[in-house]
């Protein structure tokens, strides 16, 4: 597996994500946001957590319009895999690659804690190695994780089994307790919780490890 991790000014989980990809056996290239092309042969692009461009304007809005994102969108449109975590999820909704958006947490507080995360769909390369309805312990750390989409989008996500993760105990007011969603072709995952902060036995939990292992074994050729 060849992975590219995009680095924006203000990204702060880029190295964690690279370490998690590498631990799963991937070859990882870090790509700066001003670059215009991805390296050849990339299977998956990782959009890391953080506060790209200081969250100015809206979380992820400026990153979504950065030069490299045009290549990320082209990669996705070719059927390439994309994993957006936290700020990466916000960037994915701003590009339009995933529907809906992430609003300020309903109680207006930054939430940083490990939460119960339930598998909503095992029908993706990201989640295939988990069990249906399995509950993981994964950290969240966000101020704007309140997933919001109109009723038609929510119905489509539910009907197409595209809700990859839900919160056991909704911490931020997300519609339908949504914590992560898949694209229509099931190759783009956006999620607020941080599996890359829970993949090592020395972490509080290693429940995120299987996501990266699952990707390694389940990804179809682009």
């Amino acid at each position, binding site marked *: 597996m060849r992975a590219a991790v995009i680095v924006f000014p203000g990204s702060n989980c880029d190295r964690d994500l690279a370490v998690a990809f590498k631990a799963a056996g991937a070859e990882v290239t870090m790509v700066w946001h001003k670059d215009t092309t991805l390296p050849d042969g990339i299977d998956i692009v990782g959009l890391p957590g953080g506060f790209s461009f200081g969250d100015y*304007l*809206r979380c992820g*809005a*400026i990153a979504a*319009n950065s030069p490299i994102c045009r290549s990320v969108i082209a990669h996705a449109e070719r059927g390439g895999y994309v994993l957006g975590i936290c700020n990466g999820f916000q960037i994915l*909704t*701003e590009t339009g690659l995933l*529907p*809906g*958006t992430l*609003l*300020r*947490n*309903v*109680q*207006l507080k930054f939430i940083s804690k490990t939460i119960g995360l339930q598998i909503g769909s095992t029908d993706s390369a990201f989640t295939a190695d988990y069990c249906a309805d399995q509950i993981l312990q994964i950290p969240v750390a966000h101020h704007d994780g*309140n997933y*919001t*989409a109109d009723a038609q989008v929510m119905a489509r996500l539910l009907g197409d089994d595209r809700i990859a993760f839900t919160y056991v105990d909704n911490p931020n*007011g997300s519609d339908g307790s949504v914590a992560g969603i898949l694209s229509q072709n099931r190759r783009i995952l956006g999620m607020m919780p941080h599996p890359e902060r829970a993949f090592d036995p020395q972490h509080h939990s290693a429940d995120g490890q299987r996501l990266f292992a699952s990707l390694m074994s389940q990804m179809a050729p682009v």
Partner: protein
Amino acid sequence: MKARVHIMLKNGVLDPQGEAVRHALGTLGFEGVEGVRQGKVIELDLIETDRAAAEKRVGEMCEKLLANTVIETYHVEFI
């Protein structure tokens, strides 16, 4: 030419910040405020002198970057 872009959350989209401001106003004794919606104003200094061309261009800026039309509406005034 100066364009002033007003961006507001669409009706029906929960505005937790507006709600917090409403509560704070109540705490300060300002009664009778039934709702608060918080938006933003962006001013653009444009080189363009043709009003129609500027309207078109600023509309594109709003659609592409300044507003997220999934949750926000915008309107532009020229001053």
